[in-house]
């Protein structure tokens, strides 16, 4: 027992330990993707009251959500399920009705001349409107635009909007611009 050779430490289990740590990290890291409705706010201006851009009446679809979460679109009260179709009808103006937005022929890459609707959807809310309803309405409006884009895309490229490549998508976005104006806050009907 004078001199015993020091045995090599068995490193075989090291891999297991490392694996364990690896699996812990894999499980513990939440790769939560943030999803949401993306919007661009209008730049701030001080004289907001007078600054309102003049928009022809026919080019404006007024969507108002009051503090009881009732929805009014273009003067008539509506259920949330009707909003999308109304918005679509407004964006498309398929029959070129004089009450619905005018269209301006615009030259767009890949598509050529396309009558771009001049319509703007103005979304107004009360201070008391619930966020939930507001998002629901925003969602419906987005859905209307997305559906129109899809239709145009099918018509022009024969594929759905999601399948288009970057350039084609840009063209369609130009043809059907997302025009939702989140108007200045109003306090209608008191607090």
């Amino acid at each position, binding site marked *: 027992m004078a001199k015993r050779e020091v045995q090599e430490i068995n490193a075989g289990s*090291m891999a297991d330990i*490392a694996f364990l740590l*690896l699996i812990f990290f894999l499980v513990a890291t939440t790769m939560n993707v943030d999803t949401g409705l*993306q919007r661009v706010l209008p730049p701030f201006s001080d004289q907001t009251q007078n600054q309102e851009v003049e928009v022809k009446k026919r080019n404006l679809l007024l969507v108002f959500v009051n503090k009881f979460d009732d929805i009014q679109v273009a003067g008539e009260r509506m259920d949330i399920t009707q909003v999308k179709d109304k918005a679509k009808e407004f964006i498309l103006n398929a029959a070129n009705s004089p009450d619905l937005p005018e269209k301006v022929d615009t030259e767009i890459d890949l598509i050529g001349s396309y009558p771009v609707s001049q319509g703007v959807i103005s979304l107004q809310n009360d201070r*008391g409107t*619930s*966020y939930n309803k507001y998002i629901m309405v925003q969602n419906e409006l987005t859905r209307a635009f997305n559906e129109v884009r899809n239709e145009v895309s099918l018509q022009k490229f024969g594929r759905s909007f999601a399948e288009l490549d970057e350039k084609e998508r840009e063209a369609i976005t130009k043809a059907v611009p997302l025009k939702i104006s989140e108007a200045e*806050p109003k306090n209608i009907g008191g607090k």
Partner: protein
Amino acid sequence: MAVMNKKGKKSVGAISTSSLPDVIFMILFFFMVTTTMREQELFVRFRLPEATEVQKLEKKSLASYIYIGPPTAQMAAKFGTAPRIQLNDSYHQAFEIGEFIASEKDKLNEADRVAMTVVLKADNMTRMGIITEVKQELRKANALKISYAASKSLGY
């Protein structure tokens, strides 16, 4: 060689696994480094509204978060239940958003500042009053790209 074969099976030496831990550690370190444990303590409760047309946030590094909702259970004793705005890790008033945005913008490099997105994580029971105030402040601070955080749903 022939002689050896005749002798019988030559035992194939066990494959050395001594470098396996190194490989695994490498993967481990990769994960440890890449996962940002951005564990911001939340002082507000929120249930995100649901929407069908949600888009993924493209660049998380360019996102700043504003949380709006009623204080959490522990904080409720002190702060009540009225919705609050949380920036970084404390409650703030709407007018302080400008400062918050400025500091967030400072963290980004020049080229990315335009692409900065503010993610509004608000409770679905919140009233629009407070959200409109936040939006107005964001407009003043010139942080115009926003995202209303919502979870994906299948619609009604």
